[in-house]
């Protein structure tokens, strides 16, 4: 039986990820802000075959509460096989531009709080010399663009942090997986017009599962975003700054 810790468990991608693994009789420790929604998910996972589901309602942006949280998870499920960090917020770029407070809050949600959790969990996994730390970053972190560079900054910094962490933990047998989804049709993106490039949360969840199995380091989901972002990264800055991407 695998022990799985999910931070941001009510996110659409995380929920599908948990559902898909439930048949394998996994044990879950789920964290998100909303107790009622966690309870619904817990019932669902148990029906699908989950061994045990522990729910913990808290706001993960409160970094002061991270240490007791990680401690509690270790106490309750013991060895942690997989961590999935899936929470985040797609802030309003225009609003961030006129509010430093909002900008810093977005950076805390999408980057600093994730770094805080990853740091604590990395130490746990380093000690157990096993496990996988899977973190949802974004293709938006590959290059700064005017339309959402605050979100992009947070995800870009997170990607670099994870790169360093991977380098540190590789010798200890711990997998650090950076997940870079493209456009996903979730509640976070409900206001967007959906086109050809959009995929379902289930699609991403299956990609994450596969990447963990294959012990990947960085995964673009779906795969074609690797090439889209390659092209975007190759555009010379002199030209890029004039585009409205």
């Amino acid at each position, binding site marked *: 039986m695998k022990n799985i810790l999910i931070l941001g468990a009510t996110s*659409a991608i995380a929920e599908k990820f948990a559902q898909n693994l439930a048949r394998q009789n996994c044990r879950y420790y789920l964290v998100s802000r909303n107790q009622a929604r966690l309870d619904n998910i817990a019932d669902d996972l148990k*029906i699908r075959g989950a061994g045990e589901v522990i729910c913990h309602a808290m706001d993960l942006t409160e970094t002061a509460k991270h240490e007791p949280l990680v401690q509690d998870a270790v106490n309750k499920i013991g060895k942690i096989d997989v961590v999935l960090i899936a929470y985040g917020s797609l802030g309003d770029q225009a609003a961030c531009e006129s509010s430093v407070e909002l900008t810093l809050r977005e950076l805390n949600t999408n980057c600093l709080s994730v770094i805080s959790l990853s740091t604590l969990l990395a130490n746990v996994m380093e000690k157990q010399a096993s496990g996988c730390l899977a973190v949802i970053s974004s293709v938006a972190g590959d290059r700064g663009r005017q339309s959402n560079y605050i979100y992009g900054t947070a995800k870009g910094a997170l990607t670099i942090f994870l790169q360093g962490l991977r380098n540190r933990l590789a010798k200890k047998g711990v997998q650090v997986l950076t997940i870079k989804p493209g456009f996903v049709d979730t509640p976070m993106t409900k206001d967007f017009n959906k086109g050809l490039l959009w995929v379902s949360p289930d699609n991403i969840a299956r990609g994450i599962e596969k990447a963990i199995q294959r012990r990947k380091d960085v995964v673009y989901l779906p795969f074609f975003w690797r090439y889209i972002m390659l092209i975007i990264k190759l555009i010379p800055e002199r030209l890029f700054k004039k585009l409205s991407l």
Partner: protein
Amino acid sequence: MLAYGQGRSYGDVCLNNGGVILPTENLQRFIQFDRDKGILRAEAGVTLAQVLALVMPQGWFLAVTPGTKFVSLGGALANDVHGKNHHRAGSFGCHVSAFELHRSDGERLVCTPKQNSDWFRATIGGLGLTGFISWVEIKLKPISNFYINQQIYRFANLQEFLSLNDSLEANWEYTVAWIDCLARGKKLGRGLYMAGNHSDNSTADRQTIDQPSLNMPVEAPGFVLNRFSVRAFNTLYYRKPRKNISNVHYDGYFYPLDKIAHWNRMYGKRGFFQYQCVIPPDKAEQSLHQMLDTIARSGQASFLSVLKKFGENPAPGLLSFPRPGITLALDMPNRGPKTLSLLDQLDKITMHNSGAVYPAKDARMSAQAFEIYYPEWQTFRQYIDPEFSSSFWRRVSPAK
């Protein structure tokens, strides 16, 4: 407002042009599953495919299943769908033990055959108009394995179909017939009768099939399905030598089209119409004869035409489609006014013989026809949520 599940209804009952839709794709959680009694409660967006993936390994199956597993529980309830075992089991609604209905004024009604029973009757087959269905509880039926014992009989015309059905119905849980809609004269109504029972002695392959394995990536050009290609196909299909008895996997038996994602693209850009009617038993032979003759004469090829005798089990919904009689289902490539006028002719026959047309598959019936097919609409109307409507409803109730 209108709830929108998988959008698998052929017509506009699932559409709300100019209005708001409430997608149920994020309502896909299971709530309760009694493994011993086979009772499952799940959020309305859960699909039948997801239900099967959960319950089949535990020895349970849907008590009634339509021809695709990619529909939501909410949609199956709202259209009171039926399957090949209607003569035994009735419609989907017969196996719904409870559901929750959210009204736009904030009221939440738990409906069962006993509690809020008037809402229960209005909502089953109620085309989503009575409010938002948030969860559904269904009774499952036990199975011992994943296989269906299938027997195929050839029949030469409509009359032979009817007598074949009379002699076989009692021994087979699932019965349905494919007919060659282009055959005329003495061959009118020739086809294949496919009878099935759950197999009792197979241990092979206990895998559920959750995704299509093939994909129709683009629309086929409009000329692919014409009277010649369909005639050739039909003749070959009818004549094809086949084993009489075979043991087939449940997925291929119940859901043949689910194997091909976007199979509808076969009909090209202009798409197709579905037409399904039911005619009371005493008038069935003569009126179906008339219909098949009308279709054959028109030369408008129906690729998939299906006959099935419904049983006496009364459907629970006020607007439920299934009722005693013979049902004929056709799909026809959209050739514009020509097709519409053919379907109007079929409607005349249906109306004249006290039959009804299935709203879930309709995109063109008139308000007048609807009123004749569903006299209960007057009672039903009182249960419609004031904030809910659909393109279908506005079409069939302009003056109401």
